[in-house]
Structures are given as structure tokens and as C-alpha cells.
């Protein structure tokens, strides 16, 4: 099923600062880690939004904010028009049902002392209205079948499964409450290469079957391209470029996106001598003390004086068809130019 125009998740100016404190008895705040610093986007029903960026850019904090595992410093996360950031108690609990998560590491995200049936059935304990007690075992077996596992294995423990199978268990747990949105935080990076394709195919099949919307966080850009309808590129807590997969991959406009794409090794040795390589120097600056103006300017080869004084907004720039946050944005195909 193709993504629709119906917006089910609306994120506006989302900010999360973690305080940095000093002193033991009398704690003073001496600064803040600006993990997510003004992020806005929409997610449509049935759509996959890929989120890419280096470690420390705020991808995982963003995921936690969307799950309401962290409270935002400011900004709003609206699910079907209702603000989850303001919700409390019963209302929050009902909203959380709608957003589920698939974790990165299938070895640590499943409790080794619980059976698969208990793990997948646990969401029903918290939301008993979804499945009455008598029907739970049958529900869990249905879910196992949906993700391609043997329903008879309901009483087994996680260690009896391989990595790929465990990730399927994690996906079944995410599906249990029939959410509309699933946040996948690096769902295949811990798996062997030959197993990754199996899990990606499963995620795509489930999306079609249940009309799910995915936020797909990953550092493997070829996987993100394969699964995403739109892609957001994050750098130091901000989205620097947002567009359709073809716009981001074929016509990237922000220098950071261009550098990121050119750094990805192409799995084809032909023409490797003449491939364009933009190698960024150094590491990203600390999110506790981001550079003034444009945050990428300290590593950018296009930086001018204006970049230090004026922060570029995420908007459609002349000569490009999608939003980017760079004063000097221009489309440049880095992957195919050789």
C-alpha cells in the first residue's frame, strides 16, 4: 500500500536538552547537551521516514522522545492531532499504544528469563483491553506466525533462537498492540549480512499488510534508501536536509549529506579509482557547545562569514526541490559522478 496524505505524526520544534551539572551537594547547572534542538517533520500513514546521521547526532534521543520515554524540553509531538508531550496518565498510556519500537540489539532487548510467549504477551498485561486473558496465547501464536516463526515455539526462551529469529520476536512484540507507528532503531545492524535482507523483507511485508508508518533509524545508507519513502539527514541535533529518497540520494543539496553519501563504500569495484570522495576532517563538535550559526560550518568546505553569524533554516532553496539547511545549498550528485 502506498503512503497516504493523512498525517499521523506531527513533530514541531522538538527540543531536548540534557542538563550538565556540577557539584555533589549543591548541584548547579553549568550547561546543557543539546541532543535534539528544534526538529520538525510530518509522518504520513503507511510511510517510511528514514533518519540518518553520525552517532551523537540525536537520532536515538529523537526516537525516545517520539516514544514518550523522554519528556521534551519544548516543542510538540502530535499523534493523530493530539499532543503526546502534554498528555499524562491514562491518556498518555492510550497514546503510547499507538507507537511501538523495535530495538537494535536482539541479544540484550529480550529478557532471557522470560519465554517468547511471555515477552510477546507482556504488552497485553499493560493494555488488557486489546486481548482478554483467555485469548492471549492464541494472539501470541498468531503474531509468531505473522513474523515467520513457528507458533509451537511459544514456550521457548530467547537463547534458543538465532539473532535473526530474535529480531523477529522483537518485531512481533512491537506489533502486539496493533500500533500505527513503529520506530525501528537500527533494526538490522546487529545481524549477519545474509540475515539482514530477510528482516528488511519482513518489515516491508508487514508495512503493506498493516499499513504501518515507520521511522527507520539506521546508519547503513543503502538499507535506508531501499526502505524509505522520505529521508531526514540529522547533524548535531538538527535536521539539515529532508526530502524524498531520490531527492536526497540523487540530488543532495547540503554539503553534509554530500559528504555522508560519498563516504559510503559502493559495493562494486568498477571505477573505484575515479570515485569522488569527500572526506570530512575531524569529528563532529560537542553538542554541549555547538558552533554558532550553521553547526556544520567547522567541517564544511563551503563555509563563509555568514555561516558563523546566521543560522540557515530548513527550507526549499533556489535550484533545489526539497528542504535543506544551508546558505549555499546546490544539488550535486556525488554517488554517480565519476
Amino acid at each position, binding site marked *: 500500500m502506498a503512503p497516504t496524505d493523512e498525517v499521523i505524526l506531527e513533530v514541531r520544534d522538538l527540543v531536548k536538552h540534557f542538563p550538565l551539572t556540577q557539584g555533589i551537594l549543591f548541584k548547579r547547572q553549568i550547561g546543557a547537551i543539546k541532543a535534539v534542538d528544534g526538529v520538525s517533520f510530518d509522518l504520513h500513514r503507511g510511510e517510511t521516514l528514514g533518519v540518518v546521521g*553520525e552517532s551523537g547526532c540525536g537520532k536515538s534521543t529523537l526516537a525516545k522522545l517520539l516514544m514518550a520515554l523522554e519528556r521534551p524540553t519544548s516543542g510538540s509531538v502530535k499523534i493523530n492531532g493530539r499532543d503526546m508531550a502534554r498528555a499524562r496518565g491514562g491518556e498518555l498510556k492510550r497514546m503510547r499504544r499507538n507507537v511501538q519500537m523495535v530495538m537494535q540489539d536482539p541479544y540484550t532487548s529480550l529478557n532471557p528469563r522470560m519465554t517468547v510467549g511471555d515477552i510477546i504477551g507482556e504488552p497485553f498485561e499493560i493494555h488488557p483491553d486489546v486481548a482478554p486473558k483467555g485469548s492471549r496465547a492464541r494472539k501470541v501464536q498468531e503474531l509468531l506466525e505473522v513474523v515467520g516463526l513457528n507458533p509451537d515455539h511459544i514456550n521457548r526462551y530467547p537463547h534458543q533462537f538465532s539473532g535473526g529469529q530474535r529480531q523477529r520476536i522483537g518485531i512481533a512484540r512491537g506489533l502486539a498492540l496493533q500500533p500505527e507507528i513503529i520506530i525501528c532503531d537500527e533494526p538490522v545492524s546487529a545481524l549477519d549480512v545474509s540475515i539482514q535482507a530477510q528482516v*528488511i*523483507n519482513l518489515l*516491508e511485508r508487514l508495512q503493506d499488510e498493516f499499513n504501518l508508518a515507520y521511522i527507520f533509524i539506521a546508519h547503513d545508507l543503502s538499507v535506508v534508501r531501499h526502505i524509505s519513502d522520505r529521508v531526514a539527514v540529522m547533524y548535531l541535533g538538527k535536521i539539515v536536509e529532508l526530502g524524498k529518497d531520490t531527492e536526497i540520494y540523487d540530488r543532495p543539496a547540503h554539503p553534509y549529506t554530500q559528504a*555522508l553519501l560519498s*563516504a559510503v*563504500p559502493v*559495493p562494486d*569495484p*568498477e571505477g573505484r579509482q575515479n570515485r569522488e570522495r569527500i572526506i570530512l576532517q575531524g569529528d563532529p563538535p560537542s553538542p554541549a557547545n555547538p558552533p554558532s550559526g550553521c553547526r556544520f560550518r567547522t567541517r564544511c568546505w563551503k563555509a563563509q562569514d555568514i555561516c558563523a553569524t546566521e543560522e540557515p533554516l530548513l527550507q526549499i532553496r533556489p535550484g533545489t526541490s526539497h528542504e535543506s539547511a544551508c546558505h549555499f545549498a546546490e544539488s550535486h550528485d556525488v554517488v554517480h559522478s565519476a
Partner: protein
Amino acid sequence: MKNTATDVLPAEGGLGNEPLLAVDDLHVEFVTRGGLVKAVNGVSYTLQPGETLAVLGESGSGKSVTAQAIMGILDMPPARIPKGEIRFRGTDLLKLPEDAKTQIRGQRIAMIFQDALSALNPVFTVGWQIGEMFRVHRGMSKRDAEKKAVELMDRVRIPAAKARVHDYPHQFSGGMRQRIMIAMSIALDPEVLIADEPTTALDVTVQAQIMELLAELQRESNMGLILITHDLGVVADVADKIAVMYAGRIVENAPVFDIYRHPAHPYSKGLLESIPRVDLKGQELYAIKGLPPNLLNMPTGCAFHPRCPYRQDNCVTDVPELYEISPVRNSACHYWREVLDGTDG
């Protein structure tokens, strides 16, 4: 008469016909409570100076165990090497006495590990740890060793090396820690460098920096590089030749261009086809079905047969030999001709 270490050490200088490093029919097994695990079953490869050999395989394929056997850092027991040779400049390392091995390990054959944070000692400064190479192997004074450490940190392009030589590993970022690992490994100008998943824990931008640094160091010193990885992209970028491992065996080895153009083993072919490609967007990815085998309970015949689309009856019973396709290519598949032609089994 007892041999002293220097008597048995491999010579330096020209190589003649002998490759720089040759692994020949290596077998490694582990004695475990569950039984005998045959982690490496007859692996052979060679490496020339200046050459980059990529060893590609999934977890449990034996690629790291082979490297550890070359370095002589396998814990024995539980590991044992019942068969095989590892010849460095014609000398079998497995037969060398321990004191002679120490002369080679870390000096002439060096290794970079995947996780730099756990490979570095958290309670010593990085300068001390890099300098240790010179103090232990070259008998340098503390002050000279530190000077050398700063030089090396400059060489692997750590900014402000002089100021940071007294910092501890946790004060560096992941990419910088991996640079420190590289500085330690190249300290004594090794002839062979083994890099075991050197960039797996790093971001792509940092990965590009590290791979560029390795290539540059290799050009400068003409080292032989063994790159152990599961990333088909990194391999395509830097390798001269590839050995694909599956369940403790090499199933295909070939020059890099040949294997990407026309793989000759169903497993390498499956791996290459499962990479997401632009023109296949929206379609289902090709996935190798099934799971990698349990080394305690290996399939009969060809270890890949339960997952193989080319399987015939004899694959279940006969272990395929490593057939020669050309003087530089081998494939351990009974039906390599069909795989090479691209006709489906």
C-alpha cells in the same frame, strides 16, 4: 644443540618465489563442553607485499580465528591446531619456539582489533601504550619512547599529538582511538598488518578517514594487508583479492573485480545479490534462506547445501574440493560452472 631465537627467524630482504605470508591447509578446533568445534577446516591463502587481501565472512565463519592463529594469540587450550602451516617468508610460524614467535608477533606481523576501546588499557595513557612497543621490543628509554609515540600519533594524524600524548583512551573519540590502535600496530614497521573489522564500530564518515589512512600507510611501507570484514562495500573499495569464508572453509577466492562481476560460489553470489540496489527499490530483496550452520552440528557434504539454490543430490554427501577455475580463482562448489554462467539451479 638448542636453536636460539635468531637462528630460526625468517630472513629479511628479497622473497624469491615464496609469498610474504602463506596459510596452508590450516585447521583449528576448540574443545568445548558441547563437543569439538571445528572452527577452521583447511584454510589456505597467500599474501604478497603491498597486497590487500580481504577475508569476507559472517560471524562464526572462522575468519577471525584464522587471523588469531597467524598472530599466535589463540588460547591453547581450548584451541588446538591439529594440521596446517602458517609460513611467514618461508618459515612455519607454528613450529617456532615461543621466544622466536615473540620476535615476530607485533613487530613483523601486527594486528588491529575491532573494538579499540576494549583493546586499549584504560588505566595507562595512550603515549605510554604506544611507547611500550619501543620500550619492550627496542629497549628504548621512557623519554625516547614517548618521543616516538608523539611522532606516530602525528603520522596517524591525531591533532595536537604532543598535547594529547598524556591523555587516557576514554578521552578520545572512537575514530581517534582506532588511530591510536593503528599507531601501535605500525610502530615497528610490520611487513604484514591484519585488520580485524577495523571500522565496524565507526560511523561511515570516520570509516572513510580510517580506510584512507590505512591505504596511505600501506603505500608508504609496502605492507601486506589482511582486511577481515563482512562489509561488501569496504571490500570493493580497497581489496586486491578476496577470500570468502563460510563455516570454517574458504568457499571462493578470486581477484576483486572477478568476484563482483561473476561470482563462482552460490554463497558469494547470494551475498552480492542481497545488497539493496537502487534499481530494485520497492521490490523484495534477495535473501539467502535459512541460517548459518551450527559449528557443533555441521551439515554433511557441502556446508552450504541446506541454503543453496543450486543443490543437487551429491552436495548432501560429497564435500566439494576447492576447484580451480583459473590460476588465480577457486570455488568450493560442485556446480561452479552453472553459478558462473548465472543459470539458476
